[in-house]
C-alpha cells in the first residue's frame, strides 16, 4: 500500500515538473500584462471582480500597436491569496513570466508587500483600487488610477454632515486592517472638524456577530454607521442591522460597492449609501458590453457573484487595462522601463473619468467620487450625486 502511494506520488511529481517545463512557443508578437490580484482569501471576491474588468477590456481590445507592428496582448493572472507572505512569490511569478506591466492589486496590503519585487525587476505596476497612500509613496514604479483613503474618508464625512445632515456617527472597522482603520481615521477627522460627534468601534478578524456592536451604535444615538469593511463583514452587517430594524444609515466606501451587498439588502428595510469609482449607467456602451460578456460565460458569472451587475472595481479594472495600453503605445516598446517612463505622461479618459498621474507619487488626480444608494426593491444601485471634498 505504502509503496503504491509512494510511486503515485513520485509519478505525480515527475508529471508536475514536465508540465511546468512544457511551454508553447509561437511566432506571434506578444506583450504580456500581469494581473496581480487575489482570487482567494479575504479579498478574493473583490479581486475577482477587478480581474473581470481587466479581462473584459482585453476581450474588447486584445492587441496593441507597437512600432507599427500588431502585438497580441497576453494576460498573465496570478493569485496573491490576499496574503502578505504569498504576495512576493506571486509577484515573482509575474516577473518570471516576463510581463511588461502589472495591474493590481485589490487590497493595498499585498500591493505594498509585492512592491519591492516589481521595483527590483524594473516593472511598472498600476494599482487599480488600492487606496492606501503607502502603495505609491516614494515609489517611481507604482502608479494608481483610483483616489486615496484620505480623500474618500473626507468625502464621506462631508457627505454625511452636509448633505445628509447627520451630527452623530458611529464607525466600525476591523482591527489591524489599514484600509478600514485608515478610512475611519480620515472620516473621524473630517467629521469632527465639521462639528459632528463620532464614536469609534472595532471588531476582530473573522467576526460574525455584529449584533452587539450594532446595538451599541443604536444606543449611542448615532444617525449613521460608517463601516468601510471588506465584503465578508459587510454582508453580515447589513443582515444584522436589518434584522434589528436599526434606524441608521449604513455609510461605506468602495468595498461595499458589490452585488453581494445588494443581494443582502434586497427586500429589507435598510439605508445603505456608498462612495464609489463608477456608477452603472455612466457609460451605456461599456455597461451593455460588459453585461453581455459576463452573461456569455458561466465562469465569469460566478466570479461576478452570480449576476451581471457591474461592480465599480470592474470598471476600474477596465480603465486600468487601457491606461496600460496607452502607456505601451506611448512608449512604443515592450520594455518595462520604457513603459514606466511613459506612464508618467499618460492621459486617458475612461469610463470612470479622466485619469492623469500626479508628478510626485504617480497617483491619479481624482477630485470627485460617486455616491450611490442601495435600492432595496430593485436590488440595484441608485445614483445619488457626485461628491467632492468640499
Amino acid at each position, binding site marked *: 500500500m505504502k509503496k503504491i502511494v509512494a510511486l503515485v506520488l513520485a509519478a505525480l511529481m515527475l508529471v508536475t515538473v514536465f508540465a511546468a517545463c512544457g511551454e508553447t512557443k509561437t511566432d506571434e508578437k506578444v506583450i504580456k500584462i500581469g494581473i496581480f490580484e487575489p*482570487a482567494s482569501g479575504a479579498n478574493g471576491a473583490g479581486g475577482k471582480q477587478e480581474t473581470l474588468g481587466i479581462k473584459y477590456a482585453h476581450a474588447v481590445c486584445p492587441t496593441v500597436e507597437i512600432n507599427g507592428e500588431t502585438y497580441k496582448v497576453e494576460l498573465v493572472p496570478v493569485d496573491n491569496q490576499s496574503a502578505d507572505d504569498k504576495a512576493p512569490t506571486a509577484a515573482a511569478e509575474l516577473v518570471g513570466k516576463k510581463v511588461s506591466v502589472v495591474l493590481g492589486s485589490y487590497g493595498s496590503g499585498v500591493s505594498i508587500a509585492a512592491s519591492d519585487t516589481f521595483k527590483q525587476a524594473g516593472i511598472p505596476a498600476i494599482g487599480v483600487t488600492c487606496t492606501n497612500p503607502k502603495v505609491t509613496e516614494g515609489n517611481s514604479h507604482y502608479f494608481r488610477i483610483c483616489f486615496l483613503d484620505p480623500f474618500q474618508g473626507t468625502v464621506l464625512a462631508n457627505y454625511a454632515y452636509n448633505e445628509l445632515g447627520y451630527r452623530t456617527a458611529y464607525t466600525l472597522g476591523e482591527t489591524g486592517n489599514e484600509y478600514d482603520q485608515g478610512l475611519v481615521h480620515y472620516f473621524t477627522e473630517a467629521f469632527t472638524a465639521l462639528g459632528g460627534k463620532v464614536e469609534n468601534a472595532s471588531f476582530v478578524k473573522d467576526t*460574525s456577530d455584529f449584533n452587539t456592536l450594532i*446595538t*451599541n451604535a443604536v444606543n449611542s444615538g448615532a444617525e449613521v454607521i460608517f463601516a468601510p469593511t471588506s465584503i465578508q463583514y459587510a454582508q*453580515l452587517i447589513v*443582515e444584522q442591522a436589518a434584522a*434589528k430594524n436599526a434606524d441608521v444609515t449604513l455609510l461605506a466606501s468602495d468595498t461595499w460597492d458589490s452585488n453581494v451587498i445588494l443581494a443582502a439588502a434586497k427586500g429589507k428595510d435598510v439605508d445603505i449609501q456608498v462612495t464609489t469609482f463608477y456608477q452603472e449607467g455612466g457609460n451605456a456602451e461599456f455597461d451593455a458590453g460588459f453585461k453581455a460578456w459576463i452573461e456569455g460565460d458561466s465562469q465569469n458569472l460566478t466570479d461576478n457573484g452570480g449576476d451581471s451587475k457591474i461592480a465599480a472595481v470592474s470598471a476600474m479594472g477596465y480603465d486600468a487595462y487601457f491606461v496600460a495600453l496607452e502607456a505601451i503605445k506611448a512608449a512604443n516598446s515592450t520594455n518595462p522601463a520604457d513603459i514606466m517612463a511613459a506612464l508618467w505622461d499618460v492621459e486617458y479618459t475612461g469610463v470612470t473619468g479622466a485619469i492623469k498621474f500626479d508628478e510626485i507619487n504617480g497617483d491619479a488626480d481624482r477630485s470627485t467620487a460617486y455616491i450611490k444608494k442601495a435600492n432595496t426593491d430593485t436590488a440595484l444601485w441608485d445614483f445619488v450625486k457626485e461628491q467632492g471634498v468640499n
Partner: protein
Amino acid sequence: MNITIDHLLAGISVGGQYALIAIGYTMVYGILRLINFAHGDVFMASGLIVVYLTTAMPLQYAIPLVLFLTVMLGFFIERAAYKPLRQAPRMSVMISAIGVSYLIQNLALYITGGLPQTYPAIPWISDSITIFGAVTKRVTIITPILTIILIVLLVALIRYTKIGMAMRAVSKDFETAQLMGIKINRVISTTFVIGSLLAAVGSLLYFTSYQSVVPTSGSMPGLKAFVAAVFGGIGSIPGAVIGAFIIGICENLIKSSTEFAIFSDAFTFALLIFVLCVRPTGLFGEKSIDKV
C-alpha cells in the same frame, strides 16, 4: 460600557452555538485524547452543503439531508484520517487533524471560488421578533432552548443506553475497555457521528444568524468552542455547555465596551490560559495521575 438586554441575548445565543460545537470536541477528546481541529471545518462544510443543496431542492428536504451528509463527513474523516493512526503518538493524530482542517478549507475555497456564500434564510426562525424591547431574530431565542433539549437527550443517551455506557468506559480507560470486549471502533464512530450531528445543528442555527459562509467561517467558532470545552473540563458534557455559555456571554459583554471590544477573542484565550494554569482540569474535569 452599556449593557442591555441585546448584549445578553446575543451572548446566550452565541453561547448556545458554541455549546453545540463544543460537545463534539469534548466527546472526541474524552475518548481519543485528540483535539479534533477539523471539527470547526466540519461545521463550516455543513453550512456550505446547505447553500448548495438549497439551490437544488426545497428546504424541508435539504435540512434532513444536510444533517445526514455532515454526519457522513464526520464519520468519514475519522475513518480516513484518525483510525490509521490509532497506535501513533498523540502528536501525529493532532497533526493529521490540522491537515484535515487545511484540506477541508482548501476544498471549500476551490468549490466556492473564494466568494462568500449567502446562507439561505429559513422561514419562521429567521424572522425578526421583539423581546423585552430588543429586536432580534427568532433563532436567537430558539438556539439556547434547542441546545438545552439536545443536551438533555444526549446526557440521557450516555447515561442510560448500552452504547453510552461503552462510551463512558472507553473514556475512562481505553485499553481496559478494549480488553473487556467493547468494540472501540464502533464507540469512536458513534462519538464522531453524534459530534457531527450536533455540529450540523449548530451550523444551521449559526448561519441562520450570520448568513455568510466563507472557508474560514469554522475556525474561530471552532477554536472558541474548544476553549469552552477546556474551560468546562474536557470530557465533561455539562462542563462544555456551561463553559460555552460563559464564554459566549463574556465575549458579548466585552464587545459592549467600545475600548475593549477588540479584545473579545484575546479575552477568551487569556481566560483559557488562566484556567489551564490554575485548574488544568477545568471546572468539572477529573484529575488524572500519571502512573510511574
